């Protein structure tokens, strides 16, 4: 792959990672810890919202985040023709190479 395309691929990758990590930070640290008392004033059924996010909701969001990441990265790989599924990729751990 020419340098330029590799560079573009990496930039897009960083954008995806950065946006997903900001959601990760927001839901866990902002909603689950810093603003938990404010959110607790909202009640949904038997839960205070802040307490629920801290103890359960954030975990569901984490799962969703990883699957969104898988989806976005698959799309990006296809765009750049980096998609070679069902086939061993990268260096095969079997090959005994000495490099240090």
């Amino acid at each position, binding site marked *: *792959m020419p340098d330029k395309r590799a560079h573009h691929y990496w930039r897009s990758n960083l954008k995806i990672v950065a946006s*997903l990590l900001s959601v990760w930070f927001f839901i866990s640290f902002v909603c689950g810890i810093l603003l938990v008392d404010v959110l607790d004033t909202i009640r949904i059924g038997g839960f*205070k919202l802040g307490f629920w996010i801290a103890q*359960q909701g*954030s975990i569901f969001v984490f799962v969703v985040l990883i699957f969104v990441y898988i989806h976005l990265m698959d799309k990006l790989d296809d765009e750049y023709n980096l998609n070679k599924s069902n*086939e061993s990729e*990268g260096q095969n*751990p079997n090959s005994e190479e000495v490099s240090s």
Partner: protein
Amino acid sequence: MNVQIWTFIFVFLTFGLYIGIAIWSRAGSTSDFYVAGGGVPPLANGMATAADWMSAASFISMAGLISFLGRDGTFYLMGWTGGYVLLALLLAPYLRKFGKFTVPDFIGDRYYSRTARLIAVFCAVAISFVYVCGQMQGAGIVFSRFLEVDITTGVIIGMAIVFFYAVLGGMKGITYTQVAQYCVLIFAFMVPAIFISILMTGVPIPQLGFGAELTEAFGGGYLLDRLDGLSEELGFGVYTEGQRSTQDVFFITAALMFGTAGLPHVIIRFFTVPNVRDARRSAGFALIFIAILYTTAPAVAAFARTNLINTVNNAEYTAMPEWFSKWETTNLIAFDDKNGDGRIQYVADPEINELSVNRDIMVLANPEIAGLPNWVVALVAAGALAAALSTAAGLLLVISTAVAHDFMKRSFMPSISERQELLYARIAIFVAVLIAGYVGINPPAYVAQVVAYAFGLAAASFFPAIVLGIFQKRMNKQGAIAGMVAGFLFTACYIVYFKTINPVMDNADGWWMGISPEGIGTLGTLVNLAVSLAVAKFTPEPPAEVQTIVENIRLPGEMRAV
């Protein structure tokens, strides 16, 4: 049939299963032994990662800790799951592309330095060893309570099983036994939780029962409101409100997240899948499998706490059910009738309180407290053993690969053959099992606490070094080495200072900026980052071939940067 016979049946069946799998999946090469030949399907790897990750601490202790911490217990829940987001987005795909055997392998090659490799070996062994001792203790508690053998015998049985399949099968044997262990442990965790949820709220999904109304028999009203009321009445503080300072919760959560992403036994699981796509997928599957237990745990914590208070508070001591006296014999429950009225006063005030309950028994005793059938109680014992043994095996493998592969083969004896390396790996597991077993039988007072600190140490040493190695092409060996040493020492010194040198200061007023030793790993991570970046700025950039390695691990597939 009584609990003990049921426990024997379950333990016998599950152990038989693990041994069968071990014989079926013997390792033939170092690649089999270290990374299961790199051919584990992502779904299986997700399950194995979940079992590898969920230890005796997750299964036995966590729900109990949360039931005593209330909302503050959040840092375990978010910390030990949020770390997977970091692992999936920042580490797993790139490390798989790199495609070697161990974490010190990555550090050593990326930072082109034997010193860096050896520091990584030291950190990996120290972190894993601290962690494995806790697993052996967990197995010991289960054996002694449910099979009524003494702890020594219990630990020896556990050691023999782990030794058998870890030595025979290496990573391959461990992976497939972990898949089986995941199934056992999640079934054992969910069945009692579902039963109790139906019993108390009529809702069969514990995640929802957590926010539902109690049945008439339990007095009605929302479970959490009821629990808040009971806790406040007894002086424990409102369950859904925090007692710890916000900054401390923040720091502990972050330390557990960074630590999760930096734990070598979790990272190496992603070397076992066929390619980069599968590495991403298996991180997702792993978190789903973990989330099933982790979203149930806070519900179990609330059920258990409510039930415990309902059962014991102000009740006649002589009217206590059978489980009470059984746990009394292990000294994990203790009753001291201070006012001599024959009733149990269970309150926050230490002057009046008459009951002490060890947090570790909440999950184990919960089915008994709720009066569930004997087979469910026994199932929990088998699940706890699966959790402890699966994690112990993963940790022992890290220790053995670090010693045989990174220390001997890659650092000092590059000429040894594959067969010799395999032999050294097996000897290293053998020695590690013996030491871990010894520590499990004779636990030093601090082991249980130290397990929690393994996270801080992993966060402050590995996490920044690996992330910078991938995302910062300019990072060189001087920066990485200085960062790892500074982060590790800073964190270790802070913990040692408050835990052994000056324990009187170990409280919110004595801590620096209100950060407890559990949370200091976050600061250690920042110290590592800052030192690495600063040192790298003033030292030569890494050689061209190392920069090419970095460009290559950023691209999935066979494509290489030119």
